[in-house]
């Protein structure tokens, strides 16, 4: 009986520990979100979106330039990244299914997903910034696209290989050529998964800072020219938060609030897509 009691106590300790661990995890999430919410809302108003930054030391001002820059950089990155990602994923799951090179690419893109993003930044710097002699919005977009491609590529591949092979064979039997099978049968089956992958990868690059530091740099004026340095929300947050002024800090909080909101929306939307897909069947 002594032994039994000891085992029961051990058991309770272990369960208590894992309960505690979960509470700690949730605690951080709530703490961070609540903190960003508290600081962000106190400075959150319309001026944030429609005004350019005020000179240091002056009251007011907004981050219009950063919002527009962020949209343009991320938008161009999406336009560059998605075709490569989807086509690459299609190649891997359909044409390169059995080949060695296909498997190699798939393993390497798995690794590329986790390559430090700052290394991508230095790479693009040496490729696009140094030869041209100046920072540019394009360089920022390309480096974000490089981070995005492996993610979309892998999810596309996974989702397309989930489509049963017999469905494809049925289409073949009707005399459809391979490209038609892919477009009309496989994409249709995998579309929800691919969309989810794209949403998640957008959420991922929207919060990236490190590669933008060396590529699109920053710009305190509004700029629509992708050839020039361009402001982005994340780099602006970095600059403002490490700066010495209190209202800079407040603006950085407000901007983080907007980013978190956008990213959480994208993530939740991605999850809902998955749920929607499975419940409609």
């Amino acid at each position, binding site marked *: 009986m002594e032994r039994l009691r000891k085992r029961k106590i051990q*058991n309770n300790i272990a369960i208590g520990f894992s309960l505690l*661990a979960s509470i*700690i*995890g949730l605690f951080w999430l709530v703490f*961070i979100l609540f903190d960003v919410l508290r600081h962000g809302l106190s400075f959150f108003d319309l001026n944030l979106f429609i005004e350019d930054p005020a000179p240091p030391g002056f009251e007011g001002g907004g981050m219009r330039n950063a919002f527009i820059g962020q949209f343009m950089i991320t938008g161009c990155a999406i336009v560059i990244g998605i075709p490569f990602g989807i086509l690459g994923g299609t190649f891997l799951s359909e044409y390169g299914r059995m080949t060695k090179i296909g498997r190699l690419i798939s393993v390497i893109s798995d690794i590329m997903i986790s390559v430090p993003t700052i290394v991508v930044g230095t790479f693009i710097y040496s490729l696009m910034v140094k030869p041209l002699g100046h920072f540019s919005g394009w360089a920022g977009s390309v480096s974000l696209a490089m981070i995005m491609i492996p993610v979309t590529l892998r999810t596309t591949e996974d989702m397309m290989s989930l489509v049963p092979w017999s469905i494809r064979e049925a289409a073949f039997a009707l005399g459809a050529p391979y490209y038609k099978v892919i477009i009309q049968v496989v994409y249709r089956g995998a579309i929800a998964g691919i969309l989810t992958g794209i949403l998640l990868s957008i959420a991922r690059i929207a919060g990236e800072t*490190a590669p933008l530091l060396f590529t699109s740099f920053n710009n305190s004026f509004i700029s629509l020219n992708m050839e020039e340095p361009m402001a982005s929300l994340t780099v602006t947050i970095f600059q403002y938060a490490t700066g010495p002024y209190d209202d800079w800090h407040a603006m950085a909080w407000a901007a983080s609030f907007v980013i*978190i909101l956008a990213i959480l929306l994208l993530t939740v939307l991605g999850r809902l897509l998955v749920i929607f897909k499975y419940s409609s069947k």
Partner: protein
Amino acid sequence: MVVLVSLAGIFISLIFESWESLSRFGFFNFIFTDDWNPVKEVFGAAIPLVGTFITTILALLIAIPISLGIAVFITEICPSKLKAPLSIAIELLAAIPSIIYGMWGLFTFAPIMSEYIEPGLQFVFGDIPFIGPIFQGTPLGIDVLTASIVLSIMIIPFISSIARDTILLTPQVLKESAYSIGTTEWEVIKDVILPYSKFGIYGGIIIALGRALGETMAVAFVLGNRHAFPTSFFDATSTITVTLANEFTEADSNLYMSSLYLLSLLLFVISFIVLSFAKFIVHKGSKKWNG
């Protein structure tokens, strides 16, 4: 194809750009030199390397028990209604961008650390011989310990979601047969589930290690950028990524630039090796159980 080309491209261009400093200092000399002096043009990677490893290892030490606890709780203990919300909540931690972690760490967490937690630690451990010295120094909040804790929060979701997935793979029959001979939950977890999902958990830990190695923005906020070896938990130091982020746009000489490229190459090679190793282990683990 693009992926292959870009990978090779990264590697080649980094070697090419870092050639100048590589040939000036030599590879091993660069790694073991602890001087980083742009004025005298002497550069060595020892301090950022050590800083990177210390913060990463500390972060792992904090994160592993917590995330395994979470994984076990989600899969084995908690009521099934709570399962889905809880795992989504933990995965949301991974969705928060690193710069937010950094800002939160700088403005909210660092002051808490320096006012309450670090003096407390100092009070408790400061006088014990041997481990006392690592709790010395002025607790500013911008230091190794804070950076490691922030890092550990960031990698918890990675380890716990991979661990959760592998734990779920444990066949129900094995667990039920263990319960039927009268074992407690803890004994099932310890003797049935953990041995079964060992490889997946190792893999998850190593992937998280790769993440922590390459994390930039969060650490840049809370670590300071001081080129000196940390002698206690309350020292500021530097990591590879922090050095890169702070000095890349300021480098004025070719040699300076090229040394920074060499740092970036080192980081790339280290994380590449770590991640390949993780893939290998996970692959080996899945092979062992499936075939």
